[in-house]
């Protein structure tokens, strides 16, 4: 489904060169729950954003269903992100001026998806928060809203960057159960975390250290 071939990425800051990814090759199949772990600065997030089409690697190819996403034109790469990917972040990144429903609607491609908002809100225990603004939510509720936003368009791949980084244990548990449920329904998950505990939800695990796969 997604294949990374010999991906390398370096960041240059002044005279310093930082290697984020070094010759990474990995294949993620449909239905995989792939957990990427490693210490801070290991290149986990860079790997995630490379898959998401947001960081252009210095070398290597990222193949999605046989097409190199970095050889797509801008229209196709936008389409790839809109139709096939869902993103979750540690900081949630909810629009502060939209309600819970509004934030989720932002990711909908058409009315049929918008009609499912109610169903997902029920499922994620947010039905009564539908018209609340992010400032009125707890962190757990914010992350569950961000989760629904990420999956409402029913993407094939859910990319999650430290989604439990700001959550307490019980909220982490709830969220990871929801992510796992999505995975069980056929969704592919790539989840980045420094917390190795999460590996128990995954069927695959990648550990990065200084940009290299261990």
């Amino acid at each position, binding site marked *: 489904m997604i294949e990374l071939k010999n991906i390398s990425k370096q960041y240059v800051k002044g005279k310093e060169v930082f290697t984020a990814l070094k010759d990474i090759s990995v294949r993620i199949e449909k239905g995989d729950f792939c957990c990427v772990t490693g210490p801070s600065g290991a290149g986990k997030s860079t790997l995630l954003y490379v898959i998401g089409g947001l960081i252009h690697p210095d070398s290597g190819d990222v193949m999605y269903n046989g097409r190199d996403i970095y050889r797509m034109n801008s229209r196709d790469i936008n389409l790839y992100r*809109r139709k096939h990917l869902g993103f979750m972040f540690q900081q949630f990144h909810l*629009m502060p001026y939209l309600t819970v429903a509004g934030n989720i609607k932002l990711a909908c491609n058409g009315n049929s998806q918008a009609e499912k908002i109610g169903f997902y809100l029920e499922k994620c225990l947010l039905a009564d928060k539908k018209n609340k603004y992010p400032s009125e939510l707890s962190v757990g509720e914010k992350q569950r809203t961000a989760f629904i936003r990420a999956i409402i368009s029913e993407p094939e791949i859910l990319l999650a960057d430290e989604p439990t980084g700001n959550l307490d244990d019980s909220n982490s548990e709830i969220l990871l159960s929801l992510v796992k449920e999505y995975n069980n329904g056929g969704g592919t998950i790539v989840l980045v975390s420094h917390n190795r505990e999460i590996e128990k939800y995954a069927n695959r695990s990648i550990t990065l250290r200084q940009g290299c796969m261990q």
Partner: protein
Amino acid sequence: MNPITLIIKELFYRKVNSLIILLTVIIAGTVSVAIYTLSKASENETRKIMREQGLNLYIFPKGTNLIDFYSVSNTQAFPEEYVDKLAESKTFDAVRHLTGILQVRYSDWTDPNGSSHQIVLFGYKDEAMQRFLPAQETMGFDVEKGKVHLGFLIARNIREGDPFTIKGSDGSLRSFEITERLEEGRGMIDQGVAFNLGDLQEVLGMQGMINKIEALGCVCKDGRIKNARNQVQAIFSDLEVTEISSIADARENQRLMMNKYGAFIIPFVILSCLLITGLLFYQNITVRNREIGLLKAMGKSTSGILFMIIAKAFILGLIGGIIGFFTGHLVAEYFGREIFRFTSSDIKPLWNVFYYSILLFPLLWMLASWIPALMATQIDAAKTLSQE
């Protein structure tokens, strides 16, 4: 979600930023509309003052001695058809209210008491209608045939109800009904009599002749006299044009000065407001970099992000342009009342300016947001979204 809904929600959420941007449009709109409206009102005021002052351009044969001309020493005459030809010309628009006049000094008029006086006779041809210009109300110098208007000093010598009598060039005595006795202080006409041109030509035996054309010069960009002279001489090279300076000149100079100030102030205010708007949009983009990063991660195109910023500028430009137009008009009306004598009550909303306002201000404000909008499209989504 509809992008317009998103824009409006953001606009209301960041109220202070939106209000300041809106305020910049309103200020630019108010200043521009107020100055423009006052400048137009000033132009009308100048016209009305000029009209109040009477005809201010003299057209007469080249070579006329101006000392004789001003002292009414019976200067060179020319055919009255000149007036009609000028009025028929398509290219002649620098002058209005063309009035052919025969003006002569009559040195031996005997009043009813038998005293002899030197008086001035004026024969007025009906004001010419300029075929290719919009019709206008006449200046009111027309005198009906068989009737006269008496200047104040002459009228003092003739009893109410008596006719005005004068000896013609053939020696016969002619009598005219007095229809108007003019008030004191009207200038040379105080010691004169106004006739219908045909009547005076008959009295003097000067059929078909006049010796000057009086007219009202335009309020033109290049100046009245220059324009009028060029246009008259293009048709009759043997005619000359001169101008009587009047209060209108002072008013005209004031108007031109106001236009000059306007030409500086309007662009200055608009440019300053645009600069402030550009900075406010830049600040807005900086605050929203994560939102924009998120939209990019969700597959929003570059044009979609550009649209979100520029459409916001358009909405604020449009609302501000409309408000600015009306506040500008109110400001012009308020100050116009203080400044203008004749046109203070005639300051009406200039609707053509309104149409320009609703077109120009959204466009300019879109332009001001252009660079920040381009910067928004360059936001590195991965960098902003991974920030803790």
